[in-house]
């Protein structure tokens, strides 16, 4: 029936699966993303709900880490004030590569309700660190964060590991061709 049954039967599948090493590595990477335990504002409440049993973040393979050196990604969950922005940058720089960022909620996407008169709020966390997935909402429901997590897993699955620079250069060339034509 499934993959495991094929592996069980040495004559049917031969106990062999053919595939690229890269796919397996990416599969492993995307299914065991550890995140930095880091909450900022009211989005952190939804984030906590996401961690609890109803939504169960751990089924994505996500385990909270209290040290940025052990974390694979960081969820910016809430308003980024200038006071906090410097600390976020410091935390992001301490994380080991490959690292990812999910920006959760309107505040960290674009400043949210503080976009005009917020003298103290950074208008979007992407002004200081690169963001992979934006989750809209004020605050987003845990389902939305789940969707964001699935998007991040898709992104990790498609990433190049071997001959990275060569392949990225080729992709850029093709993109240029498309733009020029």
């Amino acid at each position, binding site marked *: 029936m499934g993959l495991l049954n094929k592996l069980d039967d040495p004559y049917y599948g031969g106990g062999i699966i053919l595939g690229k090493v890269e796919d397996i590595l990416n599969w492993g990477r995307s299914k065991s993303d550890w995140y930095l335990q880091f909450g900022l504002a009211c989005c952190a409440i939804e984030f906590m709900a996401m961690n609890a049993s109803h939504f169960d973040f751990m089924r994505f393979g996500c385990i909270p880490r209290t040290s940025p050196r052990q974390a694979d990604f960081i969820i910016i969950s809430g308003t980024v004030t*200038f*006071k906090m*922005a*410097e600390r976020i940058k410091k935390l992001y720089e301490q994380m080991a590569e490959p690292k990812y960022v999910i920006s959760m909620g309107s505040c960290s996407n*674009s*400043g949210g309700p503080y*976009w*005009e*008169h917020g*003298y*103290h709020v*950074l*208008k979007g966390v992407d*002004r*200081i660190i690169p963001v992979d997935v934006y989750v809209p909402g004020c605050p987003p429901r845990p389902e939305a964060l789940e969707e964001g997590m699935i998007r991040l897993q898709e992104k990790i699955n498609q990433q190049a590991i071997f001959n990275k620079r060569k392949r990225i250069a080729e992709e850029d060339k093709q993109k240029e061709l498309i733009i020029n034509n």
Partner: protein
Amino acid sequence: MLAQEIYEKLKAEFGDAIIEFKQEPFFDPFVQVAPEKLFDISLYLRDTPELDFDYLSLLGGMDYKENLGVVYHLYSIKLKHSFILKVTVSKDNPVVPSVERIWRSADWHEREAYDMFGIRFEGHHNLIRILCPYDWEGFPLRKDYVQPDEYHGMKVPY
């Protein structure tokens, strides 16, 4: 005790330092006092047995455009009555005596009023910014505050 009675008691004790008493429908009655007598008045309000204001529930800064002010909301947990004190100071030299030694809850409230309005509380043991970063320039909740263009290389406007 009613606000009117408290006001009469204060007036009898401090005289000219009690500038104004206002009692209007739909608004809490308040007393405007002279800032230089504020500490003595506060101490009197707390230590007189029939007043017994043992709890400072709120201390907030105000910007009246020409002047700055501080509002004190007092409450007596034992006698269940409340009272409001107000002081006004000029914008050039906004100095108000600290009531931190009378009510300990004034500590952080005064630091916040200093952080947001630049009102200096004389006698406070640690008057530094509480919300903004220590190197922040200006006092954000003043009416004439102008938002900076950048902070530590980060752009402030949208």
